[in-house]
Structures are given as C-alpha cells and as structure tokens.
C-alpha cells in the first residue's frame, strides 16, 4: 500500500471507529435515559394498542391539567399534592419543594418522577411553561376530544 492510501485507510478506520463508538455509547445512554410520556388516562387505562401500563418504580413523565381545588399543601413542610387530569381518570402527584411560578390550578403542567402506586407519582420535577397560555402540546393532543367526551369527573367538586 502506498503511503497516501495507507493514510486514507487510517482516516476511514478512525472515522468509523469514532462514529461507531459514539453511536454505541449514545444508544446505551439512551436506553437508560428515555422517559416515556403518559397522560393521566394513558397511565390508568394503558397506552398504545397493547394498552401497556407502566410498572411501579418506573421513571416517567406525565402531562395534564392541574385539577382546580386539588392542590393540598402541607402546613409545616414543603410537601404538596395535587391531581392531574386529561380526559378521564385522575392521577395524584406528590412533590416536595417549591412549585414553578407558572404553576396554577387549571393549568397544563408536565411532571417528571417515579410511579409509586398505580396512579400516584412522586415527582422530582414539575415544569410549567414560560408562557401563560401554554399547554404542553402532548396534553393538547390528549384533550383534543374533550369537548365531545363528557368528563367523567366534575372538575369543580372534590372527588
């Protein structure tokens, strides 16, 4: 092999090696760090054609509207509990800490956390979008049919 070819071969091999290891590492990291997104009804009724439900202890993201009147704050600590809804079932979120400024009842939020009971999530992060008119697009999609489908719960009374 002449030196020019040799150099080329080396270059190509190095590039393949670089990209290969990058892809490998990425896939590995992705496996651990992809969080599936659920809406409250998907969490309770199952998601997709197979109606898959998350298992207890699984890390996930959930998005929905904060049910008005459901926010309960602990008087002495920073524990807070509230319920999320999209079209039907309610899911309870427990969180310890200060909620974002844009967190309000009736507002769309996204929480990230661990499933501790079939419909209870212990969140380590609660996100509300910068804009006051924001509804997470995932939630917007999920509640698209909300006008045609009568909510199974009355939003204004405690359940």
């Amino acid at each position, binding site marked *: 092999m002449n030196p020019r070819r040799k150099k080329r071969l080396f270059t190509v091999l190095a590039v393949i090696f670089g990209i290969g290891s990058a892809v490998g590492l990425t896939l590995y990291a992705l496996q651990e760090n992809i969080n599936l997104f659920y809406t409250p009804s998907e969490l309770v009724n199952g998601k997709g054609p197979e109606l898959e439900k998350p298992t207890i202890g699984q890390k996930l993201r959930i998005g929905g509207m904060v049910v008005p009147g459901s926010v309960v704050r602990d008087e002495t600590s920073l524990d807070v509990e509230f319920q999320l809804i999209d079209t039907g079932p309610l899911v309870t979120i427990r969180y310890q800490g200060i909620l974002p400024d844009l967190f309000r009842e009736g507002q769309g939020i996204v929480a990230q956390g661990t499933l501790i009971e079939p419909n209870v999530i212990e969140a380590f992060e609660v996100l509300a979008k910068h804009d006051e*008119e924001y509804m997470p697009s995932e939630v917007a999609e999920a509640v698209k049919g909300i006008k045609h489908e009568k909510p199974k719960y009355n939003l204004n009374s405690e359940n």
Partner: protein
Amino acid sequence: MIPEIGYFALVLAMALSLLLCIFPLWGAYTGNLRLMRAAPSLALGQCLFVLFSFGILIYITLTDDFTVAYVAHHSSSTLPWYYKVTSTWGGHEGAILLWLVMQSSWTALVALMSKSLPWVLRARVLGVLGFLGVGFMLYTLWMSSPFERLLPYFPVEGRDLNPLLQDPGMIIHPPLLYMGYVGLSVSFSFAIAALLTGKLDNTWAKWSRPWTMVAWAFLTLGITIGSWWAYAELGWGGWWFWDPVENASLMPWLVATALLHSLAVTEKRGVFKSWTVLLAITAFSLCLLGTFIVRSGIIVSVHAFATDPDRGLYILSFLAVVVGGSLALYAARVSQVHSEGRYRFASREVALWLNNIFLVVATLIVLLGTLLPMIHKELGLGSISIGVPFFNQMFAILIVPFALLLGIAPMLRWKQNKLSPLAKKWLVNVALSLVATAAWLFSNYEQVSALTFMATALAVWIMFSTVSDLLQKISLQASISEGFKRLGLSYWAMVLGHVGLAFVIASVTLTSAYSVERAVAMKPGDIATLNEYQYRFDGVKEIRGPNYSGHAGVVTVLKDDELVTELYAEKRLYDIGMQFMTEAAIDDGFFRDLYLALGEQMSQGAWSLRIYHKPYVRWMWLGGILISLAGFIVLADKRYRRRVKKGAQA
C-alpha cells in the same frame, strides 16, 4: 400610517435584496463587471431600509401604538422604556425583524470591508448573502410582519412583555446571540462563493477566518449571557437545561468552534479544505435548523415562543433549499479541491483534526437527543423525552479525550513532531495537575468522588498545559516583554480560549458536585443553616414596581455571627398578565454564590424559601467571557488590520 411605512421600507429592502441576489451572481457568471459593482451599494441600501423599518418598530412601541398587533401583544404603557425597546425582539415577529437587522448589517459590513477581494468573489459572497436576505424578508413580509394592525377593534392597553423577559439579561442576550447566529451566514457565503468560483485556496480561508471568529465570539457571549439569565431569572438555580431551544444555539456553536480550528489549518497549511467548507455550510445550516426548532413548535420545550406550523413549514422549506443547494454544489465541486500539504501522525494537523472529530460527535449527540423525540413521535411510537442525564452522561464521556488532547495539542508543531521530548513535559504536567487537584479538593471538601476528581483534574491539566506552554514560548525570546510582543494575537487568543474552557469545566464540575440546596418553611426570626452560612428570615415587605407589585423576603445572611449581606428575594405579581415571577436574590462571589428564591406564603406568616449554595458557579460565565474575548482579540491582529487598511486604500 407609520407602521405601514415600516412595512413598506421592508418591501423596498426586499426588492434591493432580490437585486443583490441576482445582479452580482449573474455578473460573476457572465463576467459583467458593471453588474458585480452594483453589489456593495445594493447591500448598503438594503441595510438602511431594514434599519429604518426596525427604527419604526421601536418608535411605535415607545409611543404605545396598540393598533399594531405586535405592540399590543408584547408591550404595555406601564412598561419601562428600556423594556419597551426589548419588547421589539421579545416576540416572534420582532425577533425575526432583529434577525433581518443583523443579517443586513453583516451584509453591509462585508460590502464595506471586502474591497481587496477580487470582484468575482466579492460579488458572489454578497450575492449569496442577498439570497439569504430574500429568504428571511419574504418570510417576514408574508407570514411574520410585526406591523400588522388590529383594526378596527384595538385594545386600549397592551398585554405586556412576558415578565420573564423583563430582565437586563434579556436586553442584551438576543441581539448578541443573533449577531453570532446570523454572522455565521458570512462564513457560509464565503464557502459557497469559493465553491462557485472553484478556487478554494488559502486566501479564502484567510478571508473567512476573522469573520467566523467574530460571529463565533458573539455566539459564545450570547450563549453565556443566556445561561446567566436563566440562572438569575428563572429562580431554580440552574444554568443549563439541555432544552431544545438551548441546544439550538449550542449546535452551531460546536460546529463553529470546529470550523475555527479547521480554518486555521486550511489557512496555514492548505489542507482540510473540503472539510472546512463542509463545516461552514453545516454551521449555518444548524442555525437555520435551530430557528426551525424554536419557531415551529414541533418540539416540546419549556421555553415558549410563538409557534405556528405554517411558519415552521416555510423555515423547513428554506432550510431544505439552503442545505440541499449547498450540498449539491459541494458534491459537484469537491472533487476539484486538492490539499497539497503533507503531515505525519504526530502533528498539529492531526491534533486539530481530532479536535474537529470530537466537536462534530458532540454536535451529533446534541442533534440526536434533540430530534429523536420528534422522530419517535412522527413515527407513531409515542411521545418520549430525552432528559438532562443523557446529555450529561454523553458529554462527561466526550470531554475526557477532548480535554486531554487540548492540553497536548498546542505544543505540537505543524507537519510532524518527535513525541519523546514532549512526552516528558506532558508527564510533568499530568503529575502537577493531579497534585494540585488533590490539594485543592481535599483541603476544601470531605468527600471527593472519582468523577469529580477526574473532571477537575482535566480542567487543571488544561490550565497547566496552556500556561506552561505560554511560559516556555516566552522564555524562548530574548526578554519577557519581547516574548509578549512576539507571540502574536492568535496565540494569545488560543491561550485565553483554552483557559476559559478550563474555567467552564471546573465550574460545571464543582458546582454540580458541591451545590447544596434547602427548601425550608420559615417564620420571621427563624434561622436556617446551609454550609457555613446562617440565613435569618426577617419577614417580608411589600414592594411596588412600575408594572408589578409583590413581596420581598428579607433575609440576613450571617457567617460566624458576622453579617455577610442582606438579601431581598422577591415574588412579583405583574399587573397585566397577573403572572407570578420569582426574582432570586443572589450574593455573588468569586468562589461561591448564595442564591435565594422566595416561594409561597404558608400559614401563620410563614413563607417557603429555597436556599442554594453554589460554589464556583461564576467561573462558568467568566470562562464564557474569556472564550469570547479570544474571538474578539484576533480582530486586533496585525495581519487582519493591515489588510483592512490596504483594502481601504484600494
């Protein structure tokens, strides 16, 4: 009437852009010098009309003309005047107009500063810039005009600027970021012009380099300020979230950084030419992709921007034309590009090539992490999110070889090197960095994890290697002052840039490892302790600002019973949007920040408070500023200055 004049000025600017796109390119194609000569005046004219139009937008905002939809949506009469000015780029339409201002200003600058270029090249560069101008102006006029009226029913009062954007950081962050973003279009145009001309020689690299450098410096500064704004304003104590919107600016930065290094090789050694061109194309394409991500709403992001599928589609089509067109041109011309220089494995060429590989891989990771959720969803596989841990993990892996290389590379010479004399020096530096890191960390902290130690050691290693190389190069000269003069500004820029990166790595590592936070509920008189500081809550007082009211939590910070500072952590309620905003109170320091955010009112006069102790967090922005300074310093380099002067006479 006045808003219509602003719109009309844009129409004229667009007409001039169209001419700027057609005349010079046609002239260069047919060899018609007269057509080519029209380019600079068209560029200047276009810029003047855009500036005029932008001036009108500022004017109607300052005069509270709520018949204009943009003003009604993003400003209000109680907004302080400087935030009124800010509001002109606080929304989508205005931000795009700001983009146009930047774009046409860069174009005008290129027209003014390119007098020593051959006419064919000059015309083509300006023609390509004109084409980009047309793309964005058409977009503005067609679907994103900030001059649309709300007639006949218009509000008496505007909806105010999003309170989050009412912050000094937001006044300067978007212009700086756009300056950098759009500035990369200059490197892009040079690359396309060079491909069209078919002459990819060192002159092209020499020309492109200072422009790329300045654009990159602005981009660096913009990102740094953005991170500082997020930290100071969002009230959660974080500085980087790996949000799609943040990633949108990071990707062009990474590629532009690769481009700068690759341009240096192309200029000095005449190799990597086709690669450099590809990077220039990629960098700007990623800017367009970023705009698409931010403006189309296709990706879920915590940042809210006006989102509209039609607009997204336009930007996507424009992106496709730009990327497709330039890649086709690249494919057609790249076979003509030959690199003449030869080099061995142990050489600066290879080191810089590796640097490029790492930066491109980093870009791919960010790209993948940003786009994968979207692709996943479009494929009907459901909605996923790729969170902070993914990016952190990947970057933690990537930074190790990158930082090691960064300490070694500056000492390597072009073409080839004997490694053994250098290896000794490297071993000394490695030993020194390990000892210094151990001394630093173990004297300050009880627990030091292996990961923290390694990452800190890498930062120290970059610092030591850079400084020791600097000292050695100075010692080669007759005297120290001679050494300082001889080294040249590009070398100094490299030193600054690398030292800046060392600061950033150290800061990211230490602040991630040793930041502590406490969320507490406190009544007046209560004391909370965090690290060596005591925080005494003295109650809240009412505050009233120009367009908000609220409470300020008064907290006295003590250390060993001595007063450190008094902090006011505010909770504001903005009058118009009735939106709550946390205004964190920060006691900044070189070694640590004390950061306080006021939460909600609880029962019996108690308030929730979040207290953070963040060591070395300020180094991050110090590092960012140093890095961008590196870009600006190169401008003062004699090589570039002389050429500008020569250009001015010609």
